[in-house]
């Protein structure tokens, strides 16, 4: 009886094709993809027609042509005679420079503020709270304008520059400071630095393994610092310790020589850091608050010091909560660095924008911007996902 009922039920599941969910699903998908394709065809055909009518060239050939515009702040050699591709690369490097510096500084300041908000000192926690509320409730662009105008209009001109020890000069043209003259030994010092970092990494791994096996601790932090700083220093001494330095000097209306931090860069970096650190502070605070109080108590009960409780017990757990939202803040810094264009810092968007105006090839250029930011964003999130997976709780 039961078998028969079951059999009749399975027979009745043979439905008409227009009622079959699988077939319906495919029809629906084909319709949607068809509509999207039709829209794409409509847009592309219009674009091709418009380009032909306005006699705008297409393709990426223009990248090899001479750019012909100045860039105020370059990390690599660049002149108006360089190609568009190089101009964009200069812009990309500038974007990466401000993004990396911003991520590091915002993390440090944000963590300090987040911990400060949890301080037992009422005054300190209130100040941190007001800071967070003020900075995250006003647009970043407004902060950038305000900071940039403050730097360029409140600081004195180069002739009246604030002079510290005749080597640091602060004016509305930026901060000038002495740097060592270029010397082949610097490349070797860079290699020494990389060697030092690698050595520190392996030492830390060895120390951890030894401690797990024998229980003997090793002063990893001091050893790492000594390795990372010591090896380049040794290379420098071995190379004859060259001390030739380029000093900034007032010539005409501006300084010559030395190294300069441009006001545009400063304004962008300060704005990004102040704004983002408010968000980072909230993330850090909620990460620490989410931990069970028993964790602190249990860690103290087995005799760990206060620093060890924080470093070995609380932070590793808080990190699991902190890392995913922190990733999106890092992505935000990278994307927000494109606001540079508003205050004249020559980042990628600024370079590309000039290129659009000069060549008229909007589509290729917008594609370049999008591809560049997507690559950077995806690399950051890939790295952070890898890190997140490494620190994630291992469950059954």
């Amino acid at each position: 009886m039961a078998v028969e009922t079951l059999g009749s039920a399975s027979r009745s599941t043979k439905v008409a094709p227009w009622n079959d969910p699988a077939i319906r699903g495919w029809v629906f998908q084909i319709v949607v993809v068809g509509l999207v394709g039709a829209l794409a065809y409509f847009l592309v055909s219009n674009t091709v027609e418009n380009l032909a009518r306005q006699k705008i060239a297409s393709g990426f050939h223009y990248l090899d042509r001479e750019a012909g515009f100045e860039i105020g702040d370059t990390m690599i050699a660049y002149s108006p005679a360089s190609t568009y591709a190089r101009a964009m690369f200069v812009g990309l490097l500038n974007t990466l420079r401000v993004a990396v510096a911003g991520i590091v500084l915002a993390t440090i300041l944000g963590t300090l503020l987040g911990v400060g908000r949890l301080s037992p000192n009422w005054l300190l926690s209130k100040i941190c709270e007001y800071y967070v509320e003020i900075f995250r409730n006003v647009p970043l662009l407004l902060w950038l304008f305000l900071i940039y105008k403050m730097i360029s209009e409140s600081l004195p001109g180069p002739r009246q520059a604030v002079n510290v020890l005749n080597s640091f000069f602060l004016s509305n043209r930026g901060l000038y400071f002495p740097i060592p003259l270029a010397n082949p030994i610097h490349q070797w010092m860079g290699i020494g630095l990389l060697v030092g970092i690698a050595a520190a990494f392996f030492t830390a791994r060895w120390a951890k393994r030894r401690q797990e096996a024998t229980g003997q601790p090793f002063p990893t932090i001091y050893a790492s610092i000594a390795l990372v700083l010591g090896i380049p220093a040794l290379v420098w001494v071995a190379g004859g310790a060259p001390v030739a330095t380029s000093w900034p000097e007032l010539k005409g209306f501006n300084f010559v020589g030395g190294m300069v931090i441009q006001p545009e860069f400063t304004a962008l970096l300060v704005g990004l850091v102040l704004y983002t650190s408010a968000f980072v502070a909230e993330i850090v605070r909620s990460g620490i608050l989410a931990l069970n109080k028993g964790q602190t108590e249990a860690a103290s009960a087995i005799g760990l010091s206060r620093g060890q409780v924080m470093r070995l017990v609380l932070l590793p757990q808080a990190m699991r909560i902190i890392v995913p939202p922190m990733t999106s803040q890092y992505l935000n810094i990278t994307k927000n660095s494109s606001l540079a264009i508003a205050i004249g810092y020559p980042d990628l968007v600024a370079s590309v924008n000039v290129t659009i105006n000069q060549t008229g090839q909007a589509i290729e250029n917008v594609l370049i911007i999008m591809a560049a930011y997507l690559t950077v964003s995806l690399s950051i999130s890939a790295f952070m996902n890898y890190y997140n997976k490494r620190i994630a709780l291992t469950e059954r």
Partner: protein
Amino acid sequence: MTDVVPTGERRQLAPPVLDTGVMGWMRKNLFSSWANGITTVVLLVAIGWMLSWFLEWALFTATFTAPNGQACRGHGACWALIHEKYRYIFFGSFPYAQHWRPLLAVVTMLAMLVSSADRRMWNSRLIWIWAIGSFITFLLMFGVLSFPISLFLTIAAVVGGIGMSVRGAIAEPVELNAWRALAAIGVIGLILRIAGVMPAWSLTIAAFDYVETGMWGGLPVTIILATYGLVFAFPYGVLLALGRRSKLPLIKGLCVGFIELIRGVPLISLLIMASVMLPLFLPQGTSIDKFLRALVAVILFAGAYIAEIIRGGLQSLPKGQFEAADAMALSYPQKTILIILPQALRVVIPPLINTFIGFFKDTSLVLIIGIFDFLNTANQALVDPNWAGFPAEVYLFAAFVYFCFCFSMSRYSKYLEVELNKGTRR
């Protein structure tokens, strides 16, 4: 025995002075240890120094009225500049004599937003409030509104279609036929309109002088871009989120690709795209308003972010809700609209408000493509040579206005988070 139990009046001892009242509070919160005490003193000195410097500049030596910037020089803050320019900062180049129109539009939009914040209003009434409020807002801003027949037909088709799919197998045949008729009128009308059989009728309401979007500026522009950017992005964000959770591979792939593409690039690149590429995308002869281009970019951008938030809400629902809806033999639209979305959206209201705050701030980026939003009009107020050299005053004023909006919204979102979780918290 009698010795153990004390008898007679006992004198109540007051608690130590240092543990109660102001002194006790200070000792506990400001001077609990040496390090704490030193921190407090250092901070107090720093705050006092900064506050006195700021008050000196902003209040005691400030100029509140002056004929021009020259009269302000050598003093503290020049608030006279704000006094002189505040109408421009708030309303941009809107015809001066007509400034009451953007003012009323702002008041209408704020009234809509505030009334939507009240939980008692969260029902079908809200749709009517927004329809009427939006009509008033845009009538005030444009002065002349013209609704093409295809707009009404599209609304009929969409409403009829939703009614048909949600009420199918639930409603009486009479009601169902009404929905079908509505959808049919809409679809057939649209086909006739596209085929050119139906002329381009439109309903035009002319109440005031026409003001084109190029003249709009200031606060109304910022609020319109943020509010309507999100209102239009919402339905399409919901569709993207549902698509991303779909089991159909092509749909899922399209939605994931689109969401990740948009979230991976900065808003500026979309704004530049909208301003230089959108004209190329459209057939020859159609020109699209600059303001509308910015709105399109904001909608495209916001949709991807809204989709990710709603996906969080969808994921937070227990599987049983989906299975129970399937067991009741509800169709996909019925399951989604009647069972899933009401629960998923309730969870995501606070993060959605935070997104709104984000977009309220991010609309300031439209100044890069030359739209006069609130920050841009503030910027332009600095250009006047008569009043050159007082950027801090104007930016602080603008910052104060932005702060008032964003701070109140963030407080509201925090309040809602507590309020909406009352049922689930023990």
